[in-house]
Structures are given as structure tokens and as C-alpha cells.
């Protein structure tokens, strides 16, 4: 218990700003360890109460520490630069692919549970599971992950890893505008989506009340066009995952190819983060997205080609649906390519302005 709480406390300290962490984190851990040992003799409840007290003090400490960090950086005349050609750390690379891994996992786990219930003829459980709340609720942890990512990205001037979070947030927030013409039963929940985002934005502004993160975002975006492509990677993943959705379960082969197409994107994102130099990063993005789209397109075309047409029970004809889906995916692919090609062209025309 004691070790576990100290471990949890150490994790809380990780989120403090760098300067504050360097200066005080070790001491804070020592003090907390001493206190938890002291109250340990009074039992578990006392230890948990102490930990909760620390937990409640964290928001105030973060607010103070981030304000202090801003003052220190201002005094030193330094700023965190996101304009770097260097390879990212493994930690940053994993942070970048986290949303790309989480969404398909949630999506597939829900489908897998549904298929298993079908197979076991547990229709009554299926009905309970298929309510709007549970279907929508399964994505709440994912949305929270994106909001936390956004918050930390704001505090750290939107580093490279944050672009997958921004891409996913873009998808979700645009859905939340309710401009979709789809007759989606979850649209009533989608309208609530902007609330938590605005709260996260408010917290971010309170912790770091300046437009410096937005300036850094704009500057790094202009400097490194691969970042815009990288942000669109999230949209591509969304389309790839959805493209396999209409293969009715239990469709093991569909899940396999879906997983493979996603794994190619995740691998590409990891490689992108670890690569140094924009040229190499552009090639990685294009290569992995091309491979993923090829898998998605190939498997879908094969599947729907063999599908006996009279048995299709969807309101839209299967072939039309797939053609529309593929057309849309090609548009996304073109968008993905455009910034990268622009970067490569601008690099050739104005090498000094971009690299200087």
C-alpha cells in the first residue's frame, strides 16, 4: 500500500513543469514518503486520506508552478522550441501514437463483445449493451485522453506528439457541430462534446494565460509542413477503421485486415516521430498511408465484390457505399499529400527561409 501510494504520487509529480520538477520533485517525493510512513501506523484509511489531500492540492500547485515556469522562461529569455528536426524521444513517440492505438482498440472491443453475444445467443444482454449511453460511453475515456493531451500540449507549446491529438479532436469537435446529415442516434450526445473541450481550454488558459502556445503552433506548422500531414493521419485512421465497419460479424478476416491497416498507420506514426529530418518524415508518412490505404481498398473491394448482392440489407447499395467511401479516402489521402508536397517544393525554392 505504502509503495503503491508513493508510486502514484511520483506519477503526479511527472506532470509538473520541467523547472519546478527539476528543483523540487525529489524533495517532494522524500517528504511524501516520510509522511506516508508516519501515518502508516494509523492504518490504510489514514494513508488514503493523506494521498487524497495531496491529490486535491495538485490543481493549485500546477497553477502556481506553471505560472512560475512562465516567469522563469521569460526572465531567461528562453522558450521551448517545437521547431526541431531531431528525432523525438520514445516517450514522445508513444504519446503520439496513444490515440491512434486507443480508438481502434475501443472500436474493435465493442464490436468483439457484440459479436460474441450474437454468437452465444445472448440477445437480451445485447439489447442492454446496445443502448445509446453504453455505445457512446465507451468513447468517453478516449475523449478524456484527447483532452488531457490537448491540455499538456498547450502547456508545452504544442510539441510534435500533440498533432495526433489535435487531428482526433478536430474530427470530434467538427462532429459536435451537428452539421452531419447522417441520421445518427448519437448526434444528441455529440452536441454535448464542446462542453468538456471548452472546460479543458479554460483550464489550459488559466494555467498558461498567453497566446504563446498558439503562436508556437502556427510557427512550427509553417516551418514543418509534415506536421499538418501528421495531424491528418488521425482522420486517415478514422476512415480506415470505419471502412471495415460494414463487414458483418463475426468477420475474423475483416478484423485482421482492419488491424493490419491500423498497425501500418501506428507503425508509420512511431517511425515518423523517431525519424530525424523532414524529408525522411515525409516519406514515412506517405509510405505508411499509401500501404494502409492499399490494404483497406484491396480488402474492401475483394469483400464487396464477392458479396451476393440480393442479400445486402443496408439502405445504401454496398457497391455505392464503398465507392463513396473510397472516393472520400482518396480525398483525405490527397489532403495528406498536399502539405508534404508543398513542403518539399518550398524547400527547393526557398531553402534558407524554411531552414534558417
Amino acid at each position, binding site marked *: 500500500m505504502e509503495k503503491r501510494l508513493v508510486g502514484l504520487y511520483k506519477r503526479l509529480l511527472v506532470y509538473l513543469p520541467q523547472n519546478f520538477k527539476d528543483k523540487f520533485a*525529489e524533495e517532494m517525493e522524500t517528504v511524501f514518503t516520510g509522511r506516508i510512513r508516519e501515518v502508516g501506523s494509523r492504518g490504510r484509511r489514514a494513508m488514503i486520506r493523506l494521498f487524497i489531500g495531496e491529490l486535491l492540492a495538485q490543481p493549485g500547485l500546477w497553477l502556481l508552478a506553471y505560472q512560475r515556469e512562465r516567469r522563469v522562461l521569460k526572465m531567461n529569455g528562453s522558450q521551448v522550441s517545437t521547431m526541431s528536426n531531431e528525432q523525438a524521444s520514445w516517450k514522445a513517440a508513444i504519446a503520439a501514437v496513444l490515440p491512434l492505438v486507443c480508438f481502434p482498440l475501443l472500436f474493435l472491443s465493442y464490436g468483439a463483445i457484440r459479436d460474441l453475444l450474437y454468437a452465444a445467443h445472448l440477445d437480451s444482454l445485447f439489447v442492454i449493451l446496445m443502448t445509446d449511453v453504453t455505445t457512446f460511453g465507451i468513447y468517453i475515456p478516449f475523449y478524456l485522453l484527447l483532452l488531457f493531451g490537448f491540455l499538456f500540449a498547450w502547456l508545452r507549446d504544442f510539441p510534435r506528439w500533440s498533432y495526433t491529438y489535435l487531428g482526433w479532436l478536430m474530427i470530434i469537435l467538427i462532429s459536435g457541430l451537428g452539421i452531419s446529415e447522417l441520421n445518427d442516434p448519437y448526434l444528441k450526445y455529440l452536441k454535448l462534446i464542446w462542453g468538456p473541450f471548452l472546460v479543458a481550454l479554460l483550464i489550459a488558459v488559466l494555467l498558461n494565460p498567453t497566446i504563446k502556445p498558439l503562436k508556437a503552433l502556427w510557427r512550427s506548422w509553417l516551418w514543418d509542413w509534415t506536421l499538418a500531414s501528421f495531424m491528418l493521419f488521425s482522420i486517415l485512421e478514422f476512415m480506415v477503421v470505419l471502412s471495415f465497419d460494414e463487414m458483418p460479424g463475426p468477420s475474423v478476416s475483416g478484423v485482421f485486415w482492419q488491424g493490419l491497416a491500423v498497425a501500418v498507420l501506428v507503425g508509420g506514426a512511431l517511425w515518423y516521430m523517431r525519424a530525424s529530418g523532414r524529408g525522411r518524415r515525409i516519406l514515412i508518412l506517405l509510405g505508411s498511408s499509401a500501404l494502409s490505404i492499399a490494404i483497406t481498398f484491396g480488402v474492401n473491394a475483394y469483400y464487396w465484390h464477392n458479396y451476393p448482392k440480393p442479400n445486402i440489407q443496408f439502405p445504401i447499395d454496398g457497391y455505392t457505399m464503398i465507392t463513396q467511401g473510397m472516393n472520400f479516402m482518396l480525398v483525405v489521402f490527397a489532403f495528406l499529400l498536399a502539405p508534404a508536397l508543398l513542403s518539399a517544393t518550398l524547400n527547393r525554392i526557398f531553402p534558407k527561409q524554411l531552414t534558417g
Partner: protein
Amino acid sequence: MPEIIQDYLPLTETTFYILLSMAVERKHGYAIIKDMEALSKGRVVPSTGTLYGALSRLLDQGLIERVAEENPEEVGRPRKFYSLTKFGSKLLEAEMERLRSLVVTAEQRTALNME
């Protein structure tokens, strides 16, 4: 200097007890919490986060200083101690004077009422 000191007054209870705990001798983080608990008779017991948030602010304001001291009996990084700066001591004295005058004023008023 006096007008600068006035800018920092009145102190919050937590700040007052932190400064007071260092008034006699320098202390490390854990000892400060224990001392605050004793001085306030268990009323003010800051969390570790609250204490270090306050310590960082007091360091920035130049009210306290931080010293690393090697202890030959202890292994690892040197322990950090906190002590009052001259400005911190003056501020603490000024706050005590302020509190004293409050009490004196209150006692005079209540004494008059009793008469």
C-alpha cells in the same frame, strides 16, 4: 525597505507558519510540516504540494533561501534546508508586530466595554 515589507502584509496563515518554523533554525521540508502542525496545534497541516508551492513562491520573493548540505552519514543527494533571509526575518517581525497591535487594540476596546 519598510514600504516593500508593507506590500507583503498581511501574511496568510500558511505563510506565517512556514516563516515562523524557520525563525529559530533552518529546516528541511518534512521538518517544516511537522513544526507547522505543532505550532498551530494541529490546525494547519499543509499537503506536500501546498508546502512546496509556497516554498517556491517564498524563494522567488527572496524571503527564504535554500541550502544543500551534505551529510556524511546519509547516502544520496545532499539534503535541502530552508532558512529565512534577512528580508524574510524582517517581514516575520513586521507581521508579528501587526498581529500584536491588533490584539492590543482589541484588548483595549474590550477592556473599555467591561469598565
